[in-house]
């Protein structure tokens, strides 16, 4: 059984078609990254899969359950969401923020159990936030804050996690650290990840598969190393892209002609 089945999903808002006839089947224990130019529908797709946005047509099944037909609590036990711009509540410490991820596992009237507390401690250690557990979450750096959001998603204990631009606003080192954390959870815990990323090099290096969106439609899917070399990639972004091998790693670079050179060429 697939982890995520997306059947003919379309999303239209106020006459604007954001997604059209998207059909995908995502396998258990793999990392899929959605790529595409701005406005391609990446965020719409991950929010629809996470169940926080309803499709106009089609359906999304996670582990065989239609996520839009489930109650919020049941859905939150199947899929966790890391949004692009998470709301960070002022004054809440990291530990209290992370344990919000246990919400779907106990009633709203009942507090968390000792096992919930132990899980939060364990996850904080895994993401390297133990020493910051009692810091106000708003005082964390961008990278630490994103790790706290990631920890909240892990504490939710779902087998599917959806992330929208999890490295937004991070420097290169923190981006790499964050994606390595993700990779470890996929490899060691069999997590299924659907993420969006703008950086094509990082997308190609960390994900197992890429999904190329353009204009709300799927243009290409497949193994990451194949999609980054596909002519469809340059066509979707409207600029020539090349893959350069750096010590065995694929680096995607745009082919840019300098303005001064263009002027000289055109004068000649």
């Amino acid at each position, binding site marked *: 059984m697939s982890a995520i089945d997306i059947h003919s999903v379309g999303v239209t808002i106020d006459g604007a078609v954001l997604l059209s006839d998207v059909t995908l089947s995502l396998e258990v224990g793999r990392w899929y990254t959605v790529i595409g130019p701005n406005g391609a529908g990446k965020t719409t797709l991950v929010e629809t899969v996470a169940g926080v946005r309803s499709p106009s047509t089609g359906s999304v099944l996670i582990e065989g359950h239609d996520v839009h037909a489930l*109650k919020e609590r049941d859905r939150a036990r199947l899929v966790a969401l890391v949004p692009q711009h998470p709301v960070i509540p*002022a004054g809440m410490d990291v530990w209290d923020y992370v344990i919000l991820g246990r919400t779907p596992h106990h009633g709203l009237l009942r*507090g968390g159990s000792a096992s919930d507390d132990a899980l939060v401690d364990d996850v904080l250690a895994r993401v390297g936030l133990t020493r910051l557990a009692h810091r106000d979450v708003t005082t964390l750096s961008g990278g630490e804050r994103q790790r706290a959001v990631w920890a909240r998603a892990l504490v939710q204990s779902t087998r599917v996690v959806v992330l929208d631009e999890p490295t937004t606003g991070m420097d290169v080192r923190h981006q790499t650290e964050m994606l390595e954390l993700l990779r470890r959870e996929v490899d060691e815990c069999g997590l299924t990840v659907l993420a969006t990323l703008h950086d094509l090099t990082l997308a190609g290096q960390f994900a197992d598969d890429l999904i190329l969106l353009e204009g709300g439609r799927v243009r290409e899917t497949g193994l990451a190393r194949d999609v980054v070399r596909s002519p469809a990639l340059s066509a979707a972004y409207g600029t020539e892209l090349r893959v350069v091998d750096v010590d065995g790693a694929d680096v995607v670079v745009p082919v840019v002609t300098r303005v001064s050179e263009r002027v000289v060429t055109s004068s000649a």
Partner: protein
Amino acid sequence: MIVAAGAALVIGVSSVSGTAAIGDVLSHLGIGHTSLNDVQDAIVWDLRAPRVAMALVVGAMLAVAGGSYQGVFRNPLADPYLLGIAAGAGLGATIAITRIGNPASSGIPTFTPWLAFGGAMAAVALTWSIGGRGGRNTAATLVLAGVAVSSLLTSVQTYLQQSSSSSSIESVYLWLLGSLSGASWAQVWLIIPYVVMCTLVCIASGRALDVLSVGDMESRALGLPVSRVRFLVIVASSFGTAAVVSVVGLVGFVGLIVPHVVRLTVGTSYRRILPLCVTFGATFLVLADSVARSALSGAEIPLGVVTALIGAPVFVIILNISRRPTT
């Protein structure tokens, strides 16, 4: 809270010692015997004790409702009157005093609380029907709808007042500024079931309000039925507030500043804030009412004036404390 309530039993023109006053109250609860004579007993048990009890109940309810509103709207400036309760209750009371009661008399008719309660609940229902049905920005649209409804009802109230006799206008203002001077045990027992029920619902929603602090979309992703939680908390807060306001009039600032004071003490979790709002709110209103009835000899300051006089500077202090950079 207990110390403040005990002190409030002693404050007054008739001199009664603290131990005698507390002994008198306990004797009515079946514990021991009173040392007071009949007149002193009537002053303590029939006049002061219901007033203190009413202050405890009203203060607790307004503070819990204010904290709940701040959580459900994720807005630190929210107070229990945000959705039109004050304007609705004010209009109901104005109709009772200027149109149904005897316009020539200066008293407040006995049925005023019922019309004030009806007005408050009607205002909230109208606000909800305009701004609370589905949509993606329910919290924001509800607040805007509350502003519109409040403006509408206040303008109607103003029209009714300007076309009324000066004596009834005086009565309306007396009611609007809030007072515990007419508090009786009958009134206390009338509102206690509502206050207890609504307070328990709000406190039980503390965990949900903590989740809601990450926004509607993330709360839904965390499994919170956002619309149902928001509806439940608003209904409980509004119902409790309408119940107390209908009896004592409009008492401002309690629902705004008490949750902020508690937040400074115990942090931002509503699981800790809301239970403490009960004691902090009750204590604050008992103290404010003590000031209202004892600051001037021979006259009583309207309770709403006292809470505003205390509340405004306290709010400024809180604002300055919360602006300080953390180290």
